[in-house]
């Protein structure tokens, strides 16, 4: 067989591989990064929109001196006033903030909810909370966007649950439900 014809056959084989490759692909989408789960939560501190302060490290240090029933589970909710998903999940967050969480044996565990504002401003945040309620700490300063990136946040809303020992227990991308957030909390 001539060089040309064997080249043709080689090309045909490569083409078959090409078509098989294309045929076996699914829809492409960017996957969120869940590497953080099970790892120590990135520490951060920030100012709230009302002039207060929150430091995750303080909470974790205090946890070490407490008995399990009193140790604090921290839920970090990455939030923005412009995000429609945040409106959807707000009632669930209110429930978490007001009622807390119960372990499987019925004991009420200590929980704390903080929101970290993502690409937002104080005025719009105040307006959001005035409209939808809620009085937990909302963090916003020059460093909070970096905090979001440290937690691999792609967009609001995303919520990270930090166990009392400082490890990330779970990361939920998108609007949460109360049940999904509290599942697995033990004290």
């Amino acid at each position: 067989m001539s060089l040309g014809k064997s080249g043709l056959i080689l090309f045909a084989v490569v083409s078959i591989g090409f078509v098989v490759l294309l045929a076996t692909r699914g829809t492409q989408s960017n996957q969120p990064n869940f590497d953080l789960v099970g790892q120590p939560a990135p520490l951060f501190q920030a100012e709230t929109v009302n002039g207060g302060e929150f430091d995750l490290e303080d909470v974790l240090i205090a946890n070490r001196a407490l008995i399990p029933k009193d140790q604090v589970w921290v839920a970090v909710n990455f939030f923005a006033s412009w995000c429609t998903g945040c409106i959807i999940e707000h009632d669930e967050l209110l429930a978490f903030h007001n009622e807390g969480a119960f372990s499987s044996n019925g004991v009420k565990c200590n929980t704390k909810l903080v929101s970290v504002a993502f690409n937002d401003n104080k005025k719009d945040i105040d307006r959001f909370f005035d409209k939808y309620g809620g009085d937990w700490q909302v963090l916003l300063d020059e460093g909070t966007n970096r905090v979001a990136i440290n937690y691999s946040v792609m967009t609001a809303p995303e919520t990270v649950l930090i166990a009392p020992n400082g490890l990330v227990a779970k990361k939920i991308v998108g609007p949460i439900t109360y049940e999904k957030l509290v599942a697995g909390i033990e004290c």
Partner: protein
Amino acid sequence: MNLVIGSMGVVLTLAASLTGSLTIVAGLKKSRERLRAVGAKYAWVAFAGMAISTFAMQRALVTRDFSIKYVAEQGSSLTPPLYNVATMWSALEGSILLWGLVLAGYLAIVAKKFSNRLSDPMVSWALVTMFMVTAFFALLMLGPANPFQSFDPPVGYDGPGPNPLLQNHILVAFHPPILYLGYVGFTVPFAFAIAALITGRLGEGWLLITRRWTLFSWACLTFGIILGAWWAYDVLGWGGYWGWDPVENASLLPWLTGTAFLHSVLAQERRGLLRVWNLSLVCSTFLLTILGTFITRSGIIASVHAFSEGGIGPWLLWFFSLVLLVVLALIFWRGDRLRSQGGIDSALSREGAFLANNLAFGAFAFVILLGTIFPLIVEATQDRQISVGAPYFEKMSMPIGFVILFLMAIAPVLPWRKAGAELLRDRLEWPAWGGALSLVIAVLVGARGLIPLLGFGFAGFAGTSAIRHLALSIRRNKMRGFVGRSNGGMIVHLGVVMLSLGLIASSSYVSQSSFTLDPGETVTFGGADITYESSEQIVYSNRIQEKVQIRIDGDILQPSIERFTASGQLVPSPTTKTSSTKDIQIALLDPPEEDDQSIVIQITEQPLLVWIWVGGFVMLFGSALSAIPSTKRKQTVVMEKESSVHAEEIER
């Protein structure tokens, strides 16, 4: 009503295409010429079907007939009138209808133009091929891409309208149809290439009769791509016009092989060389249009341009595989007849330049195809996600671009068969000086950096070579020196040079910054004073526009942001101050609000950007000039050549 008419139109096209091809094949097998002539008539019926469906769809869109699912999903009572027409191609099913319409149109015109040659088996087989392709697209419209599905609208229903980015610029009405005229147009030379393979008549015959069709399709594809870039530039706000997005790459791939084909046929016409190249290039062009359609509509590669999927992917992939199989089988079968009688005697010759051209464009196409599907290869073999983006394509295309500019400079002066050094030294002297002076001028006006300077040098080299050719031609033939394939081609080359200058300057020397401004505040950027003067709010039928007035060096620009009522989507509308030396584009990122009148604007400055669009128009103009015959003897000579080609092939 519209739904029934529209669906019937599609069925009519499918039936006509199948009947037409069967009739012609029967006529070929039984050597009955009358059958073949009758079969060709079905082309008109197929076109009528598509025309009817298009009419039905347009009527449904304009009257907001929400009983049709496509109109319910894409139409809206708030959409301005003009954009209703363009809504037909703003989503998947409608875009396939547009493809079908253009394809059936080409089919009918081919049947008409070749009506006095219907007894020629080559024409018959070409029509059969076109009928089969048309049948496939009609089948798509009855299957996964059905534009005429019914919908039961609740009372008071109003659709969301097309994507806001498809509602705020006039080019939405021009870019897709012109692009499709290009894409779909290459079906014609492809069909004749298949016919040439089947009939075994692989001389210049099929090239000569499809010359005008190839040129027209190429010109439309070129202009369509440039309009797309212009549209992106006008609406996106980053000063960008090409993102190496998978869909953009998909449109560039057939353009690359199509351009190589357009040039390479000259070597076959003059010396019967590069036959396998020409067949491969035209078949690749057609295959790449199908592949591009698949990539755009299957969702396997994420893209901003991608249409929503609907199961059309597998259909397109099967069709692609089928066509590829047929082409490879035909080339394998006819392999012996494809050997050229002569060969390339010397690399330094016109033939050698065309071969180098094929290699350069082929390499370019390979790079773009590889970069686009490489993430898929990595995912398939290693189960991880990577990206191949603009940095890769820019770095790889730059050396290829330089090679192409270099070929553009030397090919017009190279003689056929063999070039002597003396001759090249003589003919290339002026062009070489043009390149050198371009370098000097670039450095004098402040351009720095080895790569862009090389680019300017090569562009000057190529441009001066084209001007030299034209000058000689005008001196010989006066005004006729502007028309004809050779001279028109030189004008197209000049357009390419202008485009290259714009590309090189704007990508190498772009500067961009964003500013927060209070009313009345002034900042300085790029040596100009920019003042935020005032703002206003305008309410339209389908959107609310926040517009600001920015004074820049004496002119007032009015960028705006629009919030579309139906979808809530925010779409920026940048404004551009254009001059022959640079473009300054201002985009409004953050509009003023009632209690906070400050705004955030982004300013992008790019030198020589307008030359991209000017170059595009010059390319279009040059293509038109190419189509005008430069000698009056043309008609008889083509006929003679044809009959001699026939004689040659009968002998063989």
